[in-house]
């Protein structure tokens, strides 16, 4: 083909890295699908067998039973109220916590790391787990639900807001310090106003999430629509479930629209 020899440099071996990564992924996937090892049994047979049965019930989803609507109003309002109250209380608690967790507003590493660690631990427990345990502790009702939502929100809001404060330009604080202010004074007069748009935005975001969560907290007894959901699923009344799902969808979308509207105008 060609007469001249080219001085092609030696090719680096990338294959080992790609092979290792692919191999690891394959191995993990295999391990997680072996029932004998406690993995998930991907039982496509069962789908085929139960399909007739299940399909008929799932079919009911598309013929919503509207007669259940009157029974849903109260739980629905309860769900929304839980979400609102939970978000509000969490927002109040999140202000001092966010300031404690961010470096510019809390130069003392020990307390800062402590707050962050506690919140990481709080975030590691899923919302419904809190709800289950709280219900067993203090009984059925909306109170365990609200506490669950508060914990859930704090985990999210404080992390996001403190990270934003961390990465924001903290030069405005230098002015406060130069003028002789204490950390608390600086926080109150400069950090808070700077933080407010970001903070409000995250609170609105957590409100969106809360509505979704509070809708199902009732399944474990913590108030809201969940109790109704638990009831209808026990009887396989998927037509009623469809109505409830539709309500949840409507509320979630409305809250999302409201939240987006307010968040856009926060700047």
């Amino acid at each position, binding site marked *: 083909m060609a007469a001249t020899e080219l001085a092609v440099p030696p090719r680096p071996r990338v294959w080992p890295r790609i092979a290792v990564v692919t191999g690891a992924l394959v191995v*993990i*996937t295999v391990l*997680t*699908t072996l029932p004998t090892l*406690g*993995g*998930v*049994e*991907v*039982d496509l047979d*069962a*789908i085929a067998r*139960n*399909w007739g*049965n*299940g*399909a008929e019930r*799932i079919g009911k*989803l598309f013929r919503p039973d509207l007669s259940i609507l009157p029974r849903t109003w109260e739980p629905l*309002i309860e769900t929304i*109220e*839980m979400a*609102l*109250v939970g978000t*509000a209380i969490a927002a109040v608690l999140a202000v001092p916590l966010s300031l404690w967790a961010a470096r510019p507003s809390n130069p003392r590493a020990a307390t800062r790391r402590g707050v962050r660690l506690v919140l*990481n*631990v709080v975030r*590691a*427990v*899923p*919302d*419904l*787990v809190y709800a*289950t*345990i709280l219900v*067993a*502790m*203090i009984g059925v009702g*909306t*109170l365990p639900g*609200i506490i669950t939502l508060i914990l859930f929100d704090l985990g999210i809001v404080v992390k996001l807001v403190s990270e934003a404060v961390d990465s924001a330009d903290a030069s405005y604080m230098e002015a406060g310090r130069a003028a002789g202010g204490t950390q608390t004074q600086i926080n109150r007069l400069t950090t808070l106003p700077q933080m407010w748009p970001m903070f409000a935005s995250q609170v609105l975001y957590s409100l969106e999430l809360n509505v*979704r*969560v509070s*809708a*199902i907290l009732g*399944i*474990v007894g913590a108030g809201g629509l969940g109790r109704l*959901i638990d009831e209808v699923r026990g009887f*396989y009344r*998927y037509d009623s*479930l469809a109505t409830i*799902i539709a309500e*949840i*969808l409507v509320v*979630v*979308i409305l809250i999302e629209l*409201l939240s987006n*509207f*307010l968040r856009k*105008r926060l700047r």
Partner: protein
Amino acid sequence: MNAAALHEPDVGQVPAKPRGIVVRLAWTGVGVLLLAAFWDLGIEWGRLVDLPADLLHYGRLMFADPDWAKLPEALFQTWRSVAMAWVGAVLGVVLSTALGIPAASGVGPWWLRLTLRGLFAVIRAVPEVIIAIIILTVTGLTPFTGALALAIGGIGTHGKWTYETIESVPHGAAEAVRASGGNVLEVARWGLWTAAAPELMSLALYRFEINVRTSAILGLIGVGGIGDMLTGYTQYREWDTVGVLIIVVIVITMSIDAVSGRIRRRIMEGATVRDLDRSP
């Protein structure tokens, strides 16, 4: 008109800054709703006073002397939950990628894009627990149901992340492949995939992290795993075991988050650092 009047405006006549009436109304509305909510819920504020003491009491029951004998069982159930999370992530990522690519602008026709994005939005609004409840008529109360619910539920968010990532890729490389005579597959492979891959892989791993938490929740409705074990022991008020379970959940979740987070950072940094490594 004297000179002073020319330079100093009469402050009283400067129009007040418009304050976005609609926005203020919206916030006020929210405030009113809030007050109404507090009142309507009728929380017995008396109970709140007892609350800290109650919580401390239970806290002691759970953590003062946890029943470590149950640890092996707890770890096994956790493995089942993590397995559910992994399978759900794999399935979910495959489905989300297949559906997310046509949903990106510039790939599919507008009606397909709109339908898919609408589908993602609807799925996002439905909690995974409800998805699990729906599909368990077909697949039963098994971890497979959990994995499927995680996969389907994941399509909502991961599908959105997929098309957003694809749309954020600069178009130049794709144009060059097309200009050289490449077909759709070649354009996708070299004009799109090379740029989007690190972020997509990182998001897939993040999906798995989220799934680990959700799998515990799904266990609470009976699909198996640590959530299932938790419901059982909580119902029987065996607090010392519950304490062990909580500790296991916290430790495992935080560990997976830490490891996964480190891997994700390496994927993303490996992508950017090497680009910045300019040779003379």
